[in-house]
Structures are given as C-alpha cells and as structure tokens.
C-alpha cells in the first residue's frame, strides 16, 4: 500500500467532513449500543448465576444415594483441585410448633461454617446472631415467618420429626438464634435453617446434597463427567442447567432476544455504511475518471477508496468504544438501582432490583469484528464501479 493512497484517502475524508461524520456517528452508535447491550446481558446472566443459581443450586450438586457413602464424598471434594468451595445441605419439609401454633415449613439443614463461606448466609442476619460452632440445638428462621408467628430471638420452638419409618412423631426442642431476610417472599414466609448435624439426627434416613462452587476455568460438563467416572454409581451428579432448567433456558431466551435486537442494529449500520460507500463512489465518478485518465490504475484507485472506508469504520468503532467503555466500566462498579415496575418485577423473581453490567472481552470484539465484516462485504460495490468506469462517457456526462 502506498503512502500516497493513504494520504489521498485521509484528505478525501475531510473534503466533506459532514458526510464523514454522518457515517462515523451511526457506526459509533451501533458499537455503543451493541457493547452496552452485550454487557447488560452478561451482567444479568452473571447476576442470575451469582444470586440465584450459586447460593441455591451450586454449580454442581452431588448426592450420595445412601447415607453411608456421605463422608467419603466430603473427603473427595476437599481434595479436588477444581472445587473452589462446597457445602452440604439437607432439605425437608416439616412442622414447627411455637406456643400453640403449628406451621408447615421448609427445614433446611446447613453446615454453619461452610455455608457462611459458600453463600454468605451469616451476612443476611437481620436480628440476633448466626449459628454457633460447635452446633447446638439452635436454629435461624426467616423474617417473614418470625413476624407472622410473632417469634422473638431466644424463643423456644419445637420441631416435629420421626426417628424411624414407623414410629409416630416426636418433637425436638430448639432455640431461635437469629432472623434471616430471604429475597423471595414465599421462601421468607416458611424457611427454617437448622444445623445439619441436628438435621441428620432428626431425619436419619435422608442423605444430604453437596453444593459445589467450581473454579471458572474448567467447563462444567467435563468436570461433571470426570467426577462421575471417579465416584461411580453411588452418587448422582447434576450440573446447574440440569437442576434449574428454567433458569438456564431463561438465560438462553434472553440471549436470543438480545441477538435479535443487536442484529437489527448491525443491519441498520450495514445499510448506512453501504449508503456512504455508494455516495463516496457515485458523486466522484468524474474525479475517478480523471484519475483513471491520467494513468492511475484501477487497483490504486480502489486502494484509496478502501483506505477511506477503513478509516471511517475504524474511527467510528474507536469513538463508539471511547464512550461506551468508561460508561460500562462505571456501571459495572456501581449498578443502576431500578425502581417502579421494573424493580418490582425483578424483586419478585428473586433478584436485586438493580441493572448490573459486566464487561467481557467478547462484548467488545464481537461487534467490532461484525462491523469490519459488514465493511468488507460492502467493499464489493466500488470495485464494480471503478472497474466498469468508461472514461470518455463519464467525463462528458456532467451530473447536472
């Protein structure tokens, strides 16, 4: 590429700055919107993973098929390099009695230390204290339930349970240690957290499930199948898309919708780029004919035109990124709070009512690559024009 064609192209751009800006701006706008959209989507996905999936289902779940093999599982997990953290859970429904009131509740057996590490349950305490270790007969209850039954901290509660299959129900006396605020209204009205050691005593025939947080670098499916091979048939292993298929598909549906919107942007922008190229070439037919007449060959002319197009695109992409990156970076650090209907509906689904963003490398290079691709596609037109330019005819035909 000769320096001359670059120079000419650069000067041509600023011969009609208005037109240049009019093409540069839509490109910038498209890049801006596309990066913004992708970042918002990644943010939402991340939010679903962090606030809904990880604390409730874990990246992986492993359940021993009988209670005997449970302990070896804990040892295996503690020594596995791919596991970042894990916690056992044992969930059952049951009845609690406070004074004369009996309520059906969800009993959730947790291990206080590893749970604090895994889902930061200790930070959700609104009143009272977190469970002590070593565990005693203490429980935490959700705030909504406490309000309905008018329970106070350190009140005594009875949990109904059955020791063996056939026996009638017996009760276990526990003390309320603290209240926990849960996001979903329904869970907030009927959840009781019990130390898992106590839960194992109450329901000896049930085996607990281990929730696992993996290190991000390893693909989940590979890890799951590797664990399946190692652990054998005594365990069931499920990845989070298997345990929460609706959430997995919700993410997928959201991604599809996002791509639909983004492709409209790209389409619009593609038309815009093509329109400009059309203009660059058509309005300068005579000029191009003169260049050709004084001996510039087709390829050189094309080089000049292509340089112009590349400059416009690169400038557009650059300006777009210049504005969007700091904005998204700022929003990633401090998410936008949402109020009104949007916020309410997010809260109902169990989310924080905020608009979160997350900037991934793919959110930048995908739109950029696509813009460059569109640019290459539309480079076909000037080639046709310049090649078929008949010098005499063009010079004679003044446009008006």
């Amino acid at each position, binding site marked *: 590429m000769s320096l001359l064609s670059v120079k000419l192209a650069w000067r041509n751009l600023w011969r009609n700055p208005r037109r240049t800006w009019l093409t540069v701006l*839509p490109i910038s*706008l498209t890049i801006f919107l596309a990066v913004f959209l992708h970042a918002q989507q990644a943010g939402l996905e991340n939010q679903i993973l962090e606030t809904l999936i990880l604390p409730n289902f874990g990246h992986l779940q492993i359940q021993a098929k009988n209670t005997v093999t449970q302990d070896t599982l804990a040892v295996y997990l503690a020594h596995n390099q791919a596991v970042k953290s894990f916690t056992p859970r044992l969930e*059952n429904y049951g*009845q609690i009695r406070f004074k004369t009131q*009996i309520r*059906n509740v969800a009993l959730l057996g947790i291990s206080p230390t590893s749970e604090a590490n895994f889902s930061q349950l200790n930070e959700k305490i609104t009143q009272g204290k977190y469970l002590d270790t070593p565990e005693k007969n203490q429980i935490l209850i959700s705030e909504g339930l406490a309000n309905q039954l008018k329970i106070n901290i350190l009140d005594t509660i009875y949990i109904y349970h059955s020791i063996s299959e056939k026996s009638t129900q017996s009760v276990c006396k526990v003390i309320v240690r603290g209240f926990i605020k849960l996001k979903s209204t*329904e869970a907030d009205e009927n959840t009781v957290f019990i130390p898992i050691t106590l839960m194992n005593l109450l329901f000896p025939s049930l085996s607990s499930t281990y929730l696992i947080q993996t290190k991000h670098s390893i693909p989940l499916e590979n890890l799951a199948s590797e664990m399946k091979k190692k652990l054998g048939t005594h365990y069931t292993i499920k990845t989070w898309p298997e345990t929460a298929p609706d959430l*997995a598909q919700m993410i997928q549906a959201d991604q599809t919708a996002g791509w639909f919107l983004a492709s*409209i942007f790209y389409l619009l922008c593609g038309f815009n780029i093509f329109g400009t190229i059309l203009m660059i070439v058509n309005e300068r037919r005579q000029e191009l004919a003169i260049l050709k007449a004084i001996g510039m060959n087709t390829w050189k002319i094309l080089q000049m035109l292509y340089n112009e197009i590349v400059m416009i695109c690169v400038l557009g992409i650059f300006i777009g990124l210049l504005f969007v990156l700091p904005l998204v970076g700022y929003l990633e650090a401090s998410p936008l709070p949402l109020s009104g209907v949007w916020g309410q509906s997010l809260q109902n689904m169990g989310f924080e009512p905020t608009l979160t963003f997350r900037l991934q490398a793919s959110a930048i290079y995908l739109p950029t690559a696509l813009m460059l691709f569109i640019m290459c596609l539309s480079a076909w037109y000037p080639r046709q024009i310049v090649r078929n330019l008949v010098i005499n005819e063009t010079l004679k035909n003044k446009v008006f």
Partner: protein
Amino acid sequence: MNFFTLEVRLAWRNLWRNPIRNFLLICLIIIVLGFGTYAVAFLNGLSFQRLQDQLNYSLGHLKITHPQFDQAKNVHNFIPNFSAVKGVLQRNASIEAFSGRCNVRALAQKNNRQWGIDLYGVDAKAEKQTLQLYQKITQGKYLSEKSNQNEVVIGQSLAQKMNIRVGDSLILQMIDKEGFIKTKTWQVVGIYKYVNQKFESTHIFVPIESLQKALNLPTNAVHQIIIRLKDRNITDTQVLDYQAKWPNLKIQSWQKTAPELAYLDVLMEYFFWIFNGIILFVLLMAIVNTMLMNILERSEEFGLLKILGMNNGRILKLIFWETLFIVFLGASIGLSLAGLSIYYGQNYGLDLSIYSAAWAGWGSSPIVYPFLKPYDLLKITSLLISTAFIAALYPTYLILQKTALQLRNSNV
C-alpha cells in the same frame, strides 16, 4: 385543487433518479418497521397468553376470603356465612361461575421425606365450571362429582419428585381446626400438567367434603371463593359492589392477588417505547444520511429551481413529499409483511417449545399467538413518520438558508 401538484409529481420522479439509494432506504424501513411491529405483536401475544392461562387455570377473576386469611392459610379463617354469600352470587347475572374451596397448607409424605404443598378441597362440579384445570389432566381422570371420595389430583412435577403414579396412595399431613396434626391417606386418580412448574409441584386437589371432615370443619365452611365473570373488564366494579355488601370479607381482584400479572401490561408498554425508540434512533441516522446526500448532491439543481421562481415553501413541500414517498413505500411494504406474518402466527401459533422450560417458569403455554393492540400500529407509524420528517429537516434547512446563486456555485 389538483392533488398531483407540480411538487408532488417532481418528488415522485426524483425518487427514481437515484433508485439504488432510495431503494436501500426503503428496504431499511421495511426491515425496521417489519421487525419492530412483529416484535411488538409477539410480546403482546406472549403477555396475553400468560394472563389468559393464569386466569383460566389458577386465578379466576375475583377471590373472596376471610379478612385474616393470608399466606399462613390458617384453618380457622373460613368464610362464616358461605350459604348466604352463595345465594347472592347465584343471583348475579354477570357471574359465569364460582367455586368455594377449602385451602390449607399440608405436607405430603413418602419414605420419611416430606414436601410442602398447598391443599385445595374443591367441589368438582363448581370447580370445573370456574377453572379449566381439569382439561390439563394427562394421566388418569379428574375428581369425580360424587361427594366424599378419597380422591386426589396432583401435578406432574410433584408426581415425579415423589415418584408416585395414578392409583398410588398419597399420605397428607395437615393441622386441623383444633390444632392437632392429622394424617389422612388419599388415592391418586389423576395427574395434571400445567405449564407452571411451581404451581404443579405445590397445588393438589381433593373433594371438599373429605377435606372438611379431615379438618373437623362444618360442612359449609370454605376458605376462598373463586369467581369467574362473564366479562373480565367489570372486575373492579364487582369488587367495589361486593366489598360494600360484605364489609367483613376480603374481596380481591386478580390484579390484587397476582400483581405481577397486572403490571405485565405496564412492563410491555415500557418495552415498546425502549425497543422502538432505540431502533428508530438508529434509523433516524440512516434517513438523515440518505436525505442529506439526496439533497446536497442536488444543491445546484435547487439553485436552478430557485432561479426559475420556485420559492422556499414549494422547495420545502418538494423535499417533504420525497420523504413521505420513501416512508410510505417502506412502511406499506414493511407493515404488510409484518401483517402477513402476524396473521400466519394468529392462525397457526408460534411454537416456542424449544424454550418450554423457560416459558414454564414464566407461566404460559409454549405456543404464542401474536396480535396487535388497536393503537400499536398507529403509534409505530406515527413514530416512524415523525422520525422521517425530523430527519428531513436538517438537509432542508441547509438548502433553504442559501441563495440561488450560492447554490448554483456550490460544488458538491
């Protein structure tokens, strides 16, 4: 006055002097408007489907309860004067059907594991007239209309979780009127499949008499009355009427019992403006670009027109007519394409079952029938036309502020 004035004819001919560029712009409008309209129709269909499903299968239009009957579903809080209320409801001509139900929280038991469920005692005949859940039975049958049978209908999700089938027995534990824990066994006669998994895994139905007996309740004690109106739009007035009549009962419209459904409409409205706003903004850029090229490239020509005696008003008209033609062509084709595909969708439905699990959480059937609300088309079209005119303003301004000579001498 002749409609086809000189400006109109000139504008029409100008369109075809540079067909490629105008054609591109028209294509763009077709695509944007087509997609935009279709997306709106699709979302309308989605939210309508969801509303319809929820009202028909689980909510009804009105719900009457004891004022203290809340999430805890305390067994004491039944409607005290059900017979009297029943008489009034039967005489109301705008009510299609109603169903009195007992409703308590219970535990389903199997192998020492327990599941929290929402137990409904229903009168099979009244329930069938009010809600259509009986149509969703996939295995076995719905509750028979004979009273006091030990039959139970459960959802597919629960059946899978508990690993039980039609014919198996189901042990339920609940708290009766005296506050004692009571265990009773029912026989599974039917399994229903409703799109909402959460509903499926919690709602189970038994005959009302058997539940009343198990809970030691009097025979006409019900906790809630679900009412289905002939016309959904009179829900609010009915609520006011009955609230005035029975101040000691709680009467709620479906908007109250399921607020997320009520503000779905508002959400969609927001989405409509954001989606179309963004698209039209990008389109605005494209139209400005094209019109600017269209007009500036002809500045010499406009100079000549001015010399020949065309005043600014007529030039303005000329440019506006050109814009209008482009928009009109693009819009009519785009809208008719969107219209055709919406028409197709209405007749055959769009099957979204690849995402069925996601829709299951969202609570509607995987088949969506897109449609447009009365003002949607008007809103989209007027947005587009105003966008086009805003886009034409700037280039027109550039032309009008210059004198004929300046225009003649300006070099493109």
